[in-house]
Structures are given as structure tokens and as C-alpha cells.
């Protein structure tokens, strides 16, 4: 301890040098912190991802008929299957685009970390224009249950209007990643009724897949 004043005096003999050395160390740790944060973020996503859940998509791209869902459900070991299709578009701001996952109540059985009550899940099946959103999304857009959400999409509809009008029936959270992701869940039937092309097909690309929960 008795050398501490000496160390201190030494440090302040050349104050500029001490400050710059200190600052470059600070910068190094900021960079390390950011990268370590990213890394542990990815690790966390991996850690909470489920091994008992499968994504099913056609090996050679393209679309998968919705009728396949029943066939997949009959495969031994599969407990529940949910369709999942993206409805790309935006709410108000064209630059802030995203996708609504068009699915049905079984989505919540497959992805149980989305904590919807049974009543909320079944409400989605009964209501073609119902929309369930995550807490993060509701906060971002200042939505509450009952609000109307006009979603402007670029897909071709039968009536020619690009607008899908949803109303919010529930606001739920992801128990693994609380308050983090913007997620919108709609009723698959609403999309199938309105689109011109590819009715009855679940389009499949890397992130628009059918989800199969294996038992």
C-alpha cells in the first residue's frame, strides 16, 4: 500500500500519456464488450432454441401444399404441425417493413415460448382478421387490444387493394426472449381468401416454413 502514492505520482508525471493509454484501453474493452455481447446473444438464441422442433420445407424450393400438413402430422413422433407463411409489408412507414406470420392456433402449441392463453390462441382461428402481436411490437407502434392495423402488402389480391386490415386481439410475450422481438401473427385463412396466386400453398423459403413439433 505504501507504494500507492508513488504509483500515482508516476502516473501523473506525464498526464497526457496516462490519459491516452487509459483511453485506448477503454476503447479496446468497448470493442471487446460489443463483440462478446453479440457472441453471447447468439449463444443465448442457440441455448433457448428447441431440439424437439423441426422446420419442414421442400428440398427443391418453391411451395408446399397445405394438405401436406396433415401428412406430416401423421408421421410417427410428430405431435403437432402448424403452417407458417410470411405476409410481407409495412404499417404506415414504407421503410419500416416486416412480415406478419400467417398461421393458426397450433402455432402456439409448436412454439410454446409464445405465451398465449388457450382463449387467445383459439380467438385467432375464429377471427380471420385478428392479429396477435408481441409486447415489443405493441410498444413500438403504441397498439392496444382492439386497435385496427392496416397492413400494406405487395402481394396481388383479388380485389386489387394492397391493404390487409387487421385488428389486435391479444398482446403476448416470448418467455425466452422477453420484450425483444417484433412479432405479428395473423390468420392464414385471411391471406388465402384474398390472394390471387398460390392459394392453398404454404410458400417456403428459408424463413417461411411449416413448423412441425416432434414428440
Amino acid at each position: 500500500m505504501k507504494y500507492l502514492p508513488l504509483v500515482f505520482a508516476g502516473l501523473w508525471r506525464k498526464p497526457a500519456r496516462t490519459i491516452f493509454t487509459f483511453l485506448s484501453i477503454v476503447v479496446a474493452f468497448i470493442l471487446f464488450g460489443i463483440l462478446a455481447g453479440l457472441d453471447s446473444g447468439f449463444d443465448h438464441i442457440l441455448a433457448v432454441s428447441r431440439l424437439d422442433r423441426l422446420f419442414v420445407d421442400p428440398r427443391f424450393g418453391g411451395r408446399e401444399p397445405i394438405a401436406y400438413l396433415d401428412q406430416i402430422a401423421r408421421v410417427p413422433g410428430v405431435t403437432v404441425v402448424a403452417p407458417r407463411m410470411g405476409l410481407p409489408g409495412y404499417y404506415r412507414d414504407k421503410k419500416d417493413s416486416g412480415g406478419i406470420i400467417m398461421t393458426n392456433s397450433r402455432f402456439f402449441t409448436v412454439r410454446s415460448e409464445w405465451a398465449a392463453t388457450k382463449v387467445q390462441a383459439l380467438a385467432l382461428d375464429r377471427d380471420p382478421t385478428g392479429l396477435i402481436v408481441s409486447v415489443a411490437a405493441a410498444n413500438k407502434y403504441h397498439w392496444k387490444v382492439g386497435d385496427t392495423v392496416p397492413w400494406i402488402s405487395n402481394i396481388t389480391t383479388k380485389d386489387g387493394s394492397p391493404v390487409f386490415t387487421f385488428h389486435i386481439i391479444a398482446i403476448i410475450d416470448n418467455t425466452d426472449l422477453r420484450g425483444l422481438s417484433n412479432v405479428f401473427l395473423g390468420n392464414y385463412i385471411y391471406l388465402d381468401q384474398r390472394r390471387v396466386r398460390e392459394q392453398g400453398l404454404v410458400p417456403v423459403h428459408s424463413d417461411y416454413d411449416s413448423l412441425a413439433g416432434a414428440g
Partner: protein
Amino acid sequence: MNLLRQIFVVSAMNFRSLPQRFWTSMVIVVGLGATVGVLLSMLSMTAGIRQVYTLAGSPGRAIIASLGADNEGQSSLSRDNVQTIMNAPGIARDTDGRPLIDQSVNISIPMLRANGTKGFITLRGFGPKGAKVRYEMQMVAGRIFEPGKRELIVGVGGQKLYQHLAIGEKVILPDGEWPIVGSFRSGDILEGQLIGDSDTLMAATRHPNYNTVILRLASYDSLGELRKSLTTNPALSVHVERHSDWYTKVIDNSTSLFATLAYAIGGIMAIGALFGCLNTMYAAVSARSREIATLRALGFNGFPVAVSVILEAVVLAAAGALIGAAIAWALYDGKQDAFGANVFTLRVTPAMVGLGIVWAVVLALLGGLFPSIRAARIPIVDALRAT
């Protein structure tokens, strides 16, 4: 003695004393070497992606995609759509009088990479005039596929990155095995792809629609005429773009994240290197204070002394940048990688090396400025007494 000569003499003297300050000077060289090395390594990916798309996007070609599609895979055009497009004005014609259009399909299929990891490769379908529309393609071995037959050709880049794509090997599709009958070079995005006949591929993979139409324009200025004809046609819902403009958008979509990350990490490292540079130059000035005071006492102006300090910082920084760039180049330039199902070659270009040197020089100017002011203002009498 004029000012330039003074600057030269003082700087030369300064550089001669550099070996005595070798290890502290290395802080600048290593700091900026690391910064530039990391920046260019990260940018080599965006540069590679940019290169393959830029080379693919000929301004003499146009692409027609369904409205709202950001990439070829999202676009969908029916056979009727393609027939309508074929009759549109502004399209170049082949010697047989038929329009030079390529009704293409774009499928990504799973494929094992040469390093054993699972990846995807783009399987592209060409229309009957495909090879004439994409005239950059040159067969290097074997022959081109025959329309109507289950045959594929593969780009040399794809052959290097994925397993089992030599001529004679077979790719398994839903309706059976498709032999590879030839390989080609094109220098662009096609070089990492498998190519077969569109209609045959669509039947095999049960794709009812084409993805896009790529065509050769009758002349550079024919685009307006073609666009007007297609976008005012109520039977179509498409957008028509010059092939080069289409790829500019694709490049922005696929590289902006990497570029932002590269500049963010490079920027943070640059700030660290800047502090290191300041430190080193202050130390250099302090180590040389007796020498500087002597020079001043002999009648040298403060300005050449200040310039010599900045010059030292700049030379050390530029040397560091060159070393960093050389390491990035040696590690990554020419290496093949895939982004999704698109194969590209990592690139460290002379322009990027230039960018690295500019970064280093700017940082050295900033890092040398304050120490140089200190050097110019050293109180002569005090400094002469310094030990």
C-alpha cells in the same frame, strides 16, 4: 535557408533517430496495421459480392420480375406472362428472328461444401436463348446441356466450393439423377451456379412458374419503350429494370449489413489506434526535446519541427496500413466463399488498399497534430536543460 529545405533537414534527422525509438514507434505501425487489416478483411466480403454482381449486370440487358420482388427467387411469372413479354418492343433478336429472352428459374438446393459443411447452391434454369442472353459464359470443359434433357452444366466457382460437381457426376433431383455435362467460366454470379433447361427443371421440381425474364435490349435506349409497353399492360404486374440497376439494388440489400459492421468495428479500432498514435508522438516529442531545442537555438523555425513530427506519424501509419492491407490480401484475396446460395470470391482491391492508407494518413494527421504543436512550442531553455 528556405522553409522546404529546413523541413527536409529536420525530418531527415528525425527519421535517422527513429531506430532509437523503434518499439514506441511500433505502436503506430501495429495499431494502424491491425485497424486497416481488420477493416479490409471485413470489407473483402462486400467487395467480392459487389464484384460478382457488378460483372453480371450488363446495361445492355433488362430483367423483368413480378412487382414487389426484391430477388429472383421471390419473383414469379406465368407462361402467359412470358408469352406477352416475348411480343413486347425493344428486345434484341437472334439471327433466327426470335427475341433474345431468357425465361429463367432460380432454385436453391442443398449441396455439401468442399469443406464438408452443409450449404446451398443456386440451380438456375435457362430458356432456349439463355446462353445467348448471358453471352459472358464460356464453356471451358465438356459441352452445354441439351434443351429437354436432364443435364446440367456448372460454373468453375461452384465446382471449387462444392463437392461432387465434376463433369460426369450426378445431381439428384426429384425425378432422378441429372449428370453434369460441362463446366463454364463467366467471371460473374453465374460462375457459382448449376444451370439446366428451364422447362425441364420446372417439370422436375414442380415449379409451375418461371421466376424472371432476362433479355437483351435492342439498343441501350430501348429500355423506356419496353418498360412502357409492359407496365401499362393490364395483364401484367411486373417491374422492368436495367440488369445493372437491378444488381445495384441487390448489392445494397446484401452488403449494407456487412459494410456497416466493418466500418463500425474499424471505426472503434481506429479510435483506439488514434490514442496510441497520440501517445507515441507525444513520447517521441518528449524523447527528442533536447534535439528540438538545439535546432531551435540554432535558428530553425518551429514550423519545420512541427512538420517533421506529423511526417513521422504519417510515414509510420502508412507503413502500418500497407502491412495490414498486405496481411488482409494474403489471407483473403481470391478465397472463395458463399453467401446463401451465391458463390463469390473475396477481394482486397487496390482501391480498398487506398482506402486503408487514407484512413491511416487521416488518423496520423489527427494523432500527430497536437504533439507537433507541442514540439513547435517547446521552451528552448528548459528543454536544453532536460536530460
